[in-house]
């Protein structure tokens, strides 16, 4: 559906070009060239139309156009995706400086199961096209729009090339399920957002972000986290283009923790009168630097596109080799993408195929290795004099370099997306079609750890294979018709989705021949140590949806949609859900009373309401009572250890999707002939039927939690997006664009009923502080009336005469030994405002772009400093420099002392480019240098204030930890040199 509509948009100008072949009596031929106002680079594919006629052409790869128009034509209109519509005099040899604007009102916006022009959109939809993507090295394609869209928060929780960014649209909507929006690539929904890691960034043309519930409601039970529609680049009839883009990047660690150097360590011991003894091996080792390196990366993307009459294609191959700055980490990725469109039967039948195949080899980091570098004394060598590793072993201590270099920890992922669409136009305006797609993600991981001298461990290995397969089919029908000033669009879709996954894992230890690593599990000395684990599951999702778009005279708009989703994951009592939406819009600028306000180019008021769902927290069989293996028991009769079987969950036949009820009011504006454009949105969303594993009493329940729809939470926010062409001169331009987001998320309730029983939970523990003597007790909570992950901490009140930390208690300041029950306070760590600001300057063929991104009001619990800012760790563990001066003499203790302000401003990217234009043998050449993460301004005392803000895997929200296997992969500062060539 989506590709079809997009293709139409692209093909239309081409078709019109053919129409022009018919000779007119009175004609003139005009040539010219369209260039990007920012960097002077050619703009291809822009549509050039003779005003007042249907004659049109599109620009070639070098931005040139040649159009034969009626001689009466005085004005040419130039339009293009991502650019403001420009009118020029119909004169020959014009060079048109085309102004890019993400918020341009005529741009085509993909809205899910269809497209629309920005000016006709009634929901809160943001679009970013390739021209505005973040430059330089990106680990995951989604980072191309990091900080660009108000309300869309993309957090890269460190510098790991294999890490998935965390994506949150308009706040947290689920306590248990994924926060990531549904990502739809060319109309094919990805099974989960992490699969987007395997889409090569260079293939992407635009992102359309469906922000409000009314826009996302068309995705029903999968839409509550919002939807990001990704459109990839496509070919055009008649032009064969060869494009190459490539870059090389050098990265190094941006910032280090201030740990003691070996000499500082020796001096500290002298001052403290601690004998170093055998701990001083006489060397100076900076463990942070020993595990990192200057990393080199390179990326190449080669694409061929073109086509003949009725046929178009684009084929691209891309290769990325990205070294991580931590030893023995990184990835390489080979991607193939092919798409093609063929028309037949007088262009009434249109067939499209798309093929994506990506293979990613990952060298993964065992995060436990990073944590050891902070514990190890700086006086231990990495290697002995003879070059062999120096081995040592103590609690949370070993030679991290030896581990990083000798452990095998790899993953290999295969993503393939195969899709095909057939559309047939029955009569003008009425199209029916079918789409089918197959989605496969395979992941093979390999692990081997040798036995290390002194450590006493045994060698061990594991191999795991995960397969996720899904198939999608839809039948769709579209009808578009204008009746005078009335314009009507109807869409109906039936959709079938089936998801299957399976897993095979094998592990063993103590191999006779360790050189075989993970390739010879039968070589384990004790066969009983070899273990196999497998599982397989599936679920089905079936949907019906319909949408009506109506507008009167492009002035009054009304959109209504309804979707009915059924899922086999839902409980037997709640199999089907209904997700309606309703939008109205009023283009005030079209009204007669504003006719004289020439400064006002566009003004549109929008309001919408919609219901979306999230069922991510529900497993395929969560609702049922099913028996599975739960661990082994001893059967004395046979002397063996069989598996015990039991259900692992309380059954809940009422289980259903979480439901987000969203309201949005928005204003789109364009001023001074769209030199200033932007939008403002206010939203107020409430999520009900919130899923969580709520505590229930045992007995009568046989497990003390039940997954149930009980809680509610709200998200409220205000978003601004603006794009201004501040200076617009022939040789010099300055474009300023930015976004600002205010967001407030609050848990309203965690209580409700399950089958008549009051499920009551007054608060739910979240993150726990990590470190010696800090065994798991939560310091963040889900608590009604507060933001998710609200901290609950004792208040630090200084030190007593002995250097013991004092905390507020009912009886005044006390140490933790004097009163183990200090007064605690709730503190909200979430950022209050997020922003991104882009500046773009062009001067002749030069362009300079820099992008700043940041947030205000965030707090992070600096668990790393809590652990290492403590002089008691000496001499056996290293400490930070501040441990020597902070005066703390007692054990590390959790308090608000470590909850630090962590607002930040990051110069995310700066790019300087020179555009050579047309050169011999090439249509265009552009070279650039780019820097990523050039500086961060923050009061935060850790190494980076951008960390995970949701509990994901072993990571904990708002907790910066480098202990017990939790660590921050240091963020890199990178410099890139790149080339874009079109032949």
């Amino acid at each position, binding site marked *: 559906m989506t590709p079809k509509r997009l293709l139409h948009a692209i093909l239309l100008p081409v078709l019109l070009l053919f129409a022009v072949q018919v000779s007119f009596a009175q004609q003139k031929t005009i040539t010219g060239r369209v260039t990007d106002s920012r960097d002077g680079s050619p703009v291809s594919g822009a549509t050039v139309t003779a005003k007042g006629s249907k004659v049109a052409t599109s620009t070639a790869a070098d931005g040139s156009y040649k159009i034969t128009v009626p001689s009466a034509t005085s004005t040419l209109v130039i339009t293009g995706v991502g650019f403001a519509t420009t009118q020029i005099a119909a004169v020959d040899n014009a060079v048109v400086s085309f102004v890019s604007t993400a918020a341009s009102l005529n741009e085509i916006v993909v809205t899910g199961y269809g497209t629309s022009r920005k000016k006709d959109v009634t929901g809160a939809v943001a679009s970013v096209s390739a021209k505005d993507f973040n430059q330089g090295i990106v680990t995951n394609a989604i980072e191309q729009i990091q900080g660009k869209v108000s309300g869309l928060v993309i957090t890269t929780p460190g510098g790991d090339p294999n890490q998935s960014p965390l994506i949150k649209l308009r706040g947290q909507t689920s306590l248990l399920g994924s926060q990531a929006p549904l990502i739809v690539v060319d109309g094919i929904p990805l099974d989960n957002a992490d699969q987007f890691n395997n889409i090569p960034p260079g293939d992407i043309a635009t992102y359309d972000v469906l922000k409000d519930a009314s826009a996302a409601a068309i995705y029903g039970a999968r839409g509550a986290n919002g939807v990001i529609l990704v459109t990839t680049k496509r070919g055009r009839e008649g032009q064969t283009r060869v494009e190459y883009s490539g870059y090389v990047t050098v990265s190094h660690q941006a910032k280090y923790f201030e740990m003691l150097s070996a000499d500082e360590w020796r001096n500290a011991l002298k001052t403290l009168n601690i004998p170093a*003894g055998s701990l001083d091996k006489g060397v100076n080792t900076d463990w942070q630097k020993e595990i990192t390196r200057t990393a080199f990366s390179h990326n190449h993307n080669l694409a061929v596109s073109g086509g003949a009459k009725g046929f178009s294609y684009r084929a691209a191959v891309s290769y990325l080799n990205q070294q991580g700055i931590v030893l023995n980490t990184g990835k390489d990725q080979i991607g193939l993408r092919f798409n093609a469109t063929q028309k037949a039967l007088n262009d009434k039948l249109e067939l499209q195929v798309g093929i994506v195949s990506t293979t990613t080899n990952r060298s993964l980091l065992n995060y436990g290795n990073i944590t050891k570098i902070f514990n190890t004394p700086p006086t231990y060598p990495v290697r002995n004099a003879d070059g062999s590793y120096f081995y040592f*072993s*103590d*609690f949370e201590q070993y030679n991290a370099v030896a581990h990083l270099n000798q452990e095998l920890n790899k993953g290999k992922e295969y993503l393939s997306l195969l899709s095909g669409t057939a559309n047939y136009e029955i009569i003008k305006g009425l199209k*029916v079609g079918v789409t089918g797609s197959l989605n496969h993600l395979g992941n093979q991981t390999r692990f081997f750890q040798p036995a290390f001298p002194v450590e*006493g*461990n*045994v060698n061990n290995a594991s191999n795991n294979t995960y397969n996720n397969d899904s198939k999608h089919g839809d039948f769709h*029908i579209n009808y578009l018709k204008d009746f005078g000033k009335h314009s009507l669009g109807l869409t*109906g879709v*039936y959709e*079938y989705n089936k998801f299957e996954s*399976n897993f095979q894992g094998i592990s063993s230890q103590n191999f006779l021949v360790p050189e075989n690593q993970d390739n010879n599990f039968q070589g384990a000395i004790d066969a009983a*140590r070899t273990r196999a684990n497998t*599982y397989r*599951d599936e*679920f*089905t999702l079936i949907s*019906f949806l319909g949408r009506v778009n109506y507008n009167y005279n492009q002035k009054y708009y009304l959109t209504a949609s309804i979707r009915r989703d059924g*899922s086999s994951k839902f409980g037997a009592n709640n199999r089907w859900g209904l997700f309606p939406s309703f939008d109205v819009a009023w283009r005030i600028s079209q009204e007669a009373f504003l006719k004289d306000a020439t400064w006002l180019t566009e003004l549109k008021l929008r309001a919408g309401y919609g219901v979306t769902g999230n069922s991510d927290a529900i497993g395929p*069989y969560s609702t*049922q009572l*099913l*028996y*599975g293996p*739960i*661990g082994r*028991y*001893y059967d*004395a009769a046979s002397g063996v*250890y*069989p*598996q*015990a*079987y039991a*259900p692992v969950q309380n059954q809940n036949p009422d289980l259903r999707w979480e439901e987000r009820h969203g309201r949005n009011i928005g204003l789109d504006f364009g001023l001074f002939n769209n030199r200033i454009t932007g939008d403002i949105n206010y939203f107020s969303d409430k999520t009900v039927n919130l899923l969580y594993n709520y*505590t229930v*009493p*045992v*007995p*009568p*329940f046989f497990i*003390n939690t039940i997954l149930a729809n009980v809680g509610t939470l709200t998200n409220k926010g205000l978003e601004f997006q603006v794009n201004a062409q501040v200076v617009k001169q022939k040789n010099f331009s300055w474009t300023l664009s930015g976004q600002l987001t205010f967001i407030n998320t609050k848990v309203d309730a965690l209580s409700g009923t399950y089958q*008549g*029983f*009051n499920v*009551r*939970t007054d608060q739910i523990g979240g993150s726990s502080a990590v470190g*010696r*003597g*800090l*065994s*798991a*007790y939560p310091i963040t909570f889900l608590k009604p009336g507060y933001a998710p992950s609200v901290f609950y901490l004792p208040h630090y009140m200084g030190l007593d005469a002995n250097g013991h930390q004092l905390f507020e208690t009912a009886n005044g300041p006390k140490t933790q030994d004097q009163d*183990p029950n200090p007064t605690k306070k709730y503190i909200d760590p979430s950022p209050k405002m997020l922003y991104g600001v882009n500046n773009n300057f062009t001067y002749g063929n030069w362009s300079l772009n820099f992008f700043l991104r940041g947030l205000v009001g965030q707090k992070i619990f600096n668990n790393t400093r809590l652990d290492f800012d403590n002089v*008691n760790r000496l001499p*056996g563990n290293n400490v930070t420099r501040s441990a020597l001066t902070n005066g703390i*003499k007692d*054990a590390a*203790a959790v308090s608000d002392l470590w909850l630090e302000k962590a607002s930040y401003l990051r110069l995310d990217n700066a790019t300087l480019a020179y555009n050579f234009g047309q050169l011999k043998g090439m249509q265009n050449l552009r070279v650039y240098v780019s820097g990523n993460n050039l500086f961060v301004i923050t009061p935060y005392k850790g190494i980076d204030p951008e960390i995970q803000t949701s509990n994901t895997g072993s990571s904990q929200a708002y907790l910066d930890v480098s202990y017990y296997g939790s660590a921050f992969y240091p963020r890199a500062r990178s410099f890139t040199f790149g080339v874009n060539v079109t032949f």
Partner: protein
Amino acid sequence: MRTKFLIRSSVATVLLIAIATSCTKLDQKVYSVVPESEFWQTPAQIAAGLAPAYQALTNITDADVRDLNEVSGGGILVPTRGNDWYDNGNWQALWTHQWKPDLGPIDGAWSAIFNGIGKVNFTLNAVNALSSKPSNIDAINAELKVLRAYYYFLAMDMFGQIPVVTDFNTDPAAVNNSQSRSETYNFIVNEITSNIGALPDKTGETYGRMTKWGANALLAKLYLNAGVYTGTPNWEAAIAACDNVINSGKYSLSGDYLSNFAVSNEGSPENIFVVPFDKINIGGNNWEMRTLHYQSQLTYNLNGGPWNGYCVTADFYNQYDNSDNRKQMFAVGQQFGSDGTALKDAQTGLPLVFSKYVNELSNPTDTFRLAGARNVKYHPEAGTSGGQSNDMVVFRLADIYLMRAEAKLWSSTDLGGALADVNMVRGRAGVSAWSAGDLNKENLYHERQRELAWEGWGRNDAIRFSHFGDARTPGKPADADKHLELFPIPSPEISANGNLKQNPGY
């Protein structure tokens, strides 16, 4: 045109309707799990279905339940060593009796016990609902109910008034703890006595399962504490239950005290009811890790460094005569590698010498890392780092002898028999026999401490002998009143079930 349109749109409509009606089935197959109706089909499946009721025991013997009973009862001490083992003040609160209803390990203990009860109730319901029940259904029911009685005994002993639910299908809104502790006591005793006849005798197949003799041992525990639970002692019944075990002739004291806890202790003639563990198959026995020092890895050839936590006080350690072979359960003094080298604490460079003195609850100095005698009663298993294979003992014959002696002493009946029982246990320990003058409650309490150190009876015994509220070194003042003899109902449980009433004093 119009006709064509009609035809085409009709075709489309038909297609749409066809799809809409035929493709709305939300099919779903299960693969690696099975519905209840497809389980319980074979004897092996029935055994695997009953096993979870026992599996819950692995979360009790070396976990919060044991820790609550031993730390609060003065057996195990977990001092804060430098930055280690502060753990939210949990260990100090348990030692000094300053716990509150939100103390994590208290809810951990409650959850572990009631998890067992929940599993039994579920299993009873499932197996009795089968259309063709197993032929030994009566024996199965009896065994599960007596196992549940053990879980209820733990809950009633620790928390006093508890919710008693025996039917899986009970309305959750009706669950409360209004039943008095003595009513619950009677319920538990009745569950055991009315089902004991259907329980199996000790055979090669009953290792790790509830037998007639395990049930008698449990009865003995209940009767011995009847005075605590109901206000009315029942010493005669305690003696009778002990007699049943001893006179069965199925058990005998093993010659070597420590062999009952060895890595391979399944051959012990003394152990009556155990929880099996295995280094490969059943994890949960982490004894070696909790008590030993990081470098003790080299003494016992472990795969990873232990955690340097649990120890005993000097007072506890000093109860043992040097000739007492039970004293060998403690590691004190210089520790050596398996190759005979004298070990050092790698982080401080100090010689790895475990001192028997623990003078504070918390101390950041490097010597304090080595404070306290360590308990290796369950001998560390080479090649493991936790998850050792020693099966953990719930009931054993020496306890039965000491219980019988105690009941006779309290009731002043057959004091000669009581003395003989104690001296059997002392004789095996290699210490001199008591004379009649030595047989008093104070001595017997200490004998139980020496014999049953860290086996989970510390609090239970201390309450019975009125020692629970004593001041202890280091750092524990005497309790102001007796409300601490019951743990509070954990606050998360009250939060989850508003019908639960808190114990007095909390």
